[in-house]
């Protein structure tokens, strides 16, 4: 059941251009069997292009893809019988009900066992609305139906593009549990997401892509345990003052507020100075309610993708770092 060299999915030198724009510039992914793999990257980094390539919707200019241990190219569509996918936004016939959409989708590709549609409607919490037309579904319900559709043929490899889009908090937790259970059952889940906090809780391995190339890949524990960062949690209204106080031991750019987890501050210093961080804050009358060492996924992501926010944790939508980001803001007159 395991793929070549224990990999469920592998790409080598994957390149794709859309006209003059390079979407992928030699992507090398190695996704082990039986894990939840978080595929991260800024907007336009090539995540969706990768997903499309992995499902045969588009074809690579050069490079190779191995799916479940075997080459996947034009003419290898049967390889997808063991793959479930939710690419971009979920797409359904609006005039059919949720159940009817699943039944008709099951007519494509690999045969689907009897009763599978019922099981999936139950799993995704759509039982009560299964007879309603999809045109009347909310985004979250469509997303649930999309996840059900991806699971139709009980796939060994699941490819999900932003699966938590539109889901309510309970839906996100349920999805996370479902994906974890699938991985625990030996299936491989490849999930792209922008919700770094969500990814951090769910995945075993992450791959970070930037400008069409893989910039970091590995077990999340290894990536986050690499020293150099202490994370401290303070009261939210103490965050700004804490950053100022901590600058005394780290320099002006050494402490940044987490945007994903309000109240948390990442301090660039070695793990053995964790006590000093606490002492400095206490000296200023600020009481830490949480302290931990190791990397923050958000920090790591921003550093690796060139989106490092300037002091104060102010991010940028322009995908440029440091001075360039500052210049961009100044040019647009929104800096001061």
């Amino acid at each position, binding site marked *: 059941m395991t793929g070549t060299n224990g990999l469920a999915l592998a790409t080598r030198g994957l390149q794709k251009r859309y006209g003059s724009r390079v979407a992928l510039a030699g992507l090398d992914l190695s996704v082990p069997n039986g894990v939840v793999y978080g595929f991260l990257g800024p907007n336009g980094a090539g995540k969706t292009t990768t997903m499309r390539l992995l*499902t045969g919707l588009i074809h690579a200019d050069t490079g190779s893809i191995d799916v479940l241990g075997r080459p996947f190219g034009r003419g290898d569509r049967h390889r997808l*019988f063991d793959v479930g996918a939710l690419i971009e936004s979920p797409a359904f016939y609006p005039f059919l009900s949720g159940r009817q959409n699943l039944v008709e989708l099951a007519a494509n*590709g*690999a045969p689907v066992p009897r009763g599978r549609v019922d099981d999936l409607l139950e799993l995704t919490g759509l039982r009560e609305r299964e007879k309603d037309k999809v045109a009347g579904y909310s985004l979250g319900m469509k997303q649930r139906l999309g996840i059900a*559709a991806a699971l139709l043929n009980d796939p060994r490899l699941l490819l999900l593009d932003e699966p938590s889009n539109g889901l309510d908090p309970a839906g996100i937790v349920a999805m996370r549990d479902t994906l974890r259970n699938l991985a625990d059952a030996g299936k491989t889940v490849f999930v792209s997401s922008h919700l770094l906090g969500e990814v951090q809780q769910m995945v075993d391995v992450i791959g970070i892509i930037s400008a069409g190339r893989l910039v970091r890949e590995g077990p999340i524990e290894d990536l986050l345990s690499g020293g150099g960062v202490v994370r401290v949690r303070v009261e939210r209204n103490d965050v700004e003052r804490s950053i100022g106080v901590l600058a005394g031991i780290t320099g002006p750019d050494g402490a940044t507020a987490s945007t994903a987890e309000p109240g948390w501050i990442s301090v660039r210093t070695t793990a053995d100075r964790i006590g000093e961080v606490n002492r400095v804050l206490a000296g200023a009358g600020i009481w830490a309610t949480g302290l931990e060492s190791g990397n923050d996924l958000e920090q790591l992501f921003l550093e690796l993708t060139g989106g490092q926010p300037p002091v104060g944790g102010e991010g940028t939508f322009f995908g440029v770092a440091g001075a360039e980001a500052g210049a961009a803001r100044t040019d647009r007159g929104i800096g001061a």
Partner: protein
Amino acid sequence: MRLFASGLRKLGRRLATWVTFGLLAGLLVLILIAVGATSDRAGANTAQRAAALGLITFPGAYDSILSFILGLGGLFGVVYGAAIAGSEWTWGTLKNAVARGESRARYVLLSFASIAVVIALGLLFAFVTGVAAALVAAGLANVPTSGLNDAATLGRLPGHLLKGWLAITEEAALGFAIATLARSQLAGIGAGIAFYFGETFAGIFLPDVVKYLPFNVATASVATSGSSSGGGFGGGGAQIAALDPSTALILVVAWLVGALAVAAAFTERAEITG
């Protein structure tokens, strides 16, 4: 077979199917009943009255009904084919099928096969409705219906219906291929309609070329003896010297196969990014 049956179920549940064939049958009923109800109106001369009653007098009414269905049905066929093919791209449902490992060409061809079956059923429905409406209209106008069982006409009907089905299916295939190339429902319908009427107008300037084009050959293939341009509802160009029906029928098949080949080949090679 699963895919074909799925295509039929989807079309059966689709409003566009019921609107298309309901509109066709509804218009036919409206015209025939109007003819029957107004046949004795004041001011109509004998010739006008005879022409109107010809539409509801059997066995000639069979040909009138079929002519109406095949004429307007061509336009409806283009729009219907374009709507079905285009929606697969617009809604992104083709993407789902491909991502499940379904063959793109098989998906396209079986989707169209289900359209062809629905057209056959729709054609029969419209024809039967038309005959019923003509009977009612004949009753309103006190026209005898003794010709209803005319053996010679009834014997020809299956062949005419079959050729009519093939012609409308070919026109639907054109719309299907155009929408596939356009990768959009709206653009496909718009382009299909433009192509349909454009062919008629082009016939004014290039009759010798246009007579070989898809809508003209469809019209010519269903022409009954004595008529030069068959149905005569658009696409046919009334002034064009039509091909003989057997040549036209061969060209109908050629256009049908060509349109489907283009749709399948394009889909097979397309980058699905929507």
